[in-house]
């Protein structure tokens, strides 16, 4: 295992243990900025770790980023690792980051579905869901992006336990989802929530479960336009943006529909690259370019959150 986060290979995919080891190294190297919280345990009793980046204070407004909720989307967990190092590296010299951390905290959950992620490394690279087993289901796993209490069980999710979009027996049935729900509710001061998926190069905002536009649709659309422009400026990667239901399809029980309904206005989902050559099997050499371009978009959302307190 690498001895420091400076020798960690960010241009390669890593196992769950290597990522958890990276987290411990980052915390040990930056005790005044980074801490590691355990917000719960997965179905198979793996810890659910969230990195907290804070310059002090208590219960400050916060910016949440999660990656890897769909375990096979490896470029997202790898990007989460890169984001963590970027925040540490730039927290004093980057104007956006420095000003954000002056008044806000950042929470980053890199491996949101550790059971599924471990399974992709050991048994089935194509695994997407959790690894829960519910009575009466002949198949394993629930789609953790259909299990939230927002339009739960509606169109845009499957009631078939063998489907990749199975919504689960009830909302928050998955401990990986329940842990975030409890954390968001207990913290109560999260102002932006970004959940990162792959692939198909989209920046999406609520809703997915209904065609009713969100009250803040105009503002979210404008932010998306600016964020996508920043992202594309680096390598020319083309993104589409809009609400989930108008841009891709109806999806019920989704993460950011729930966070938006909790009052977290700046709720977004990214679908990172691939352009249609590799799909989920994006070559490792594209990890850093994908993370770099996404970071530019995240900074637009950060700046807007900072400039528009609510």
């Amino acid at each position, binding site marked *: 295992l690498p001895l420091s986060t400076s020798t960690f290979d960010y241009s390669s995919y890593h196992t769950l243990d290597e990522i958890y080891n990276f987290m411990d190294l980052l915390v040990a190297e930056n005790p005044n900025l980074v801490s590691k919280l355990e917000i719960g345990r997965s179905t198979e009793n793996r810890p659910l770790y969230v990195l907290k980046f804070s310059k002090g204070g208590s219960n400050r407004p916060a910016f949440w980023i999660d990656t890897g909720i769909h375990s096979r989307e490896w470029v997202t967990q790898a990007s989460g690792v890169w984001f963590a190092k970027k925040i540490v590296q730039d927290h004093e010299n980057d104007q956006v980051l420095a000003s954000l951390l002056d008044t806000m905290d950042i929470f980053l959950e890199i491996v949101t579905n550790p059971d599924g992620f471990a399974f992709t490394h050991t048994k089935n690279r*194509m695994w997407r869901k959790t690894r829960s087993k519910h009575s009466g289901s002949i198949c394993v796993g629930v789609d953790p992006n259909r299990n939230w209490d927002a339009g739960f069980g509606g169109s845009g999710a499957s009631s078939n336990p063998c489907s990749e979009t199975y919504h689960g027996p009830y909302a928050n049935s998955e401990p990986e989802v329940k842990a975030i729900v409890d954390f968001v509710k207990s913290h109560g001061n999260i102002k932006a929530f970004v959940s990162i998926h792959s692939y198909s190069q989209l920046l999406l905002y609520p809703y997915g479960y209904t065609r009713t536009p969100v009250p803040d649709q105009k503002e979210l659309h404008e932010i998306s336009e600016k964020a996508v422009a920043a992202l594309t400026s680096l390598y020319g990667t083309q993104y589409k943006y809009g609400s989930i239901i108008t841009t891709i399809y109806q999806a019920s029980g989704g993460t950011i529909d729930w966070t938006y309904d909790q009052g977290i206005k700046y709720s977004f989902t990214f679908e990172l690259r691939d352009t249609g050559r590799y799909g989920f099997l994006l070559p490792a050499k594209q990890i850093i370019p994908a993370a770099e371009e996404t970071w530019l978009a995240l900074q637009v959302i950060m700046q807007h959150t900072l400039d528009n307190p609510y």
Partner: protein
Amino acid sequence: TETFVGHQVLRIIPTSDEELQKVQELQDLEDLQLDFWLEPRGLGLPVDVRVPFPSLQPLKVHLEANGISYSIMIEDVQELLEQEQTEMLRSSR
């Protein structure tokens, strides 16, 4: 460990409502064991589907019989997986 020898990923771009519906109907054919990487979303938007080897021929015949064009995005999924594994081993060494 599950292997994906001979699995292919096909890219289908529905150009009419009729085609879109035909592709959506594929999602209900459980015995084909199709894994939709990108689900049917709308006209002109790509649908990417991983097809196990035994389902390849029947699916291609079905698509061609319905005049639905497709391209092969990944010739052999297992080959890409092995490249990925090799990369990871190289990096960890």
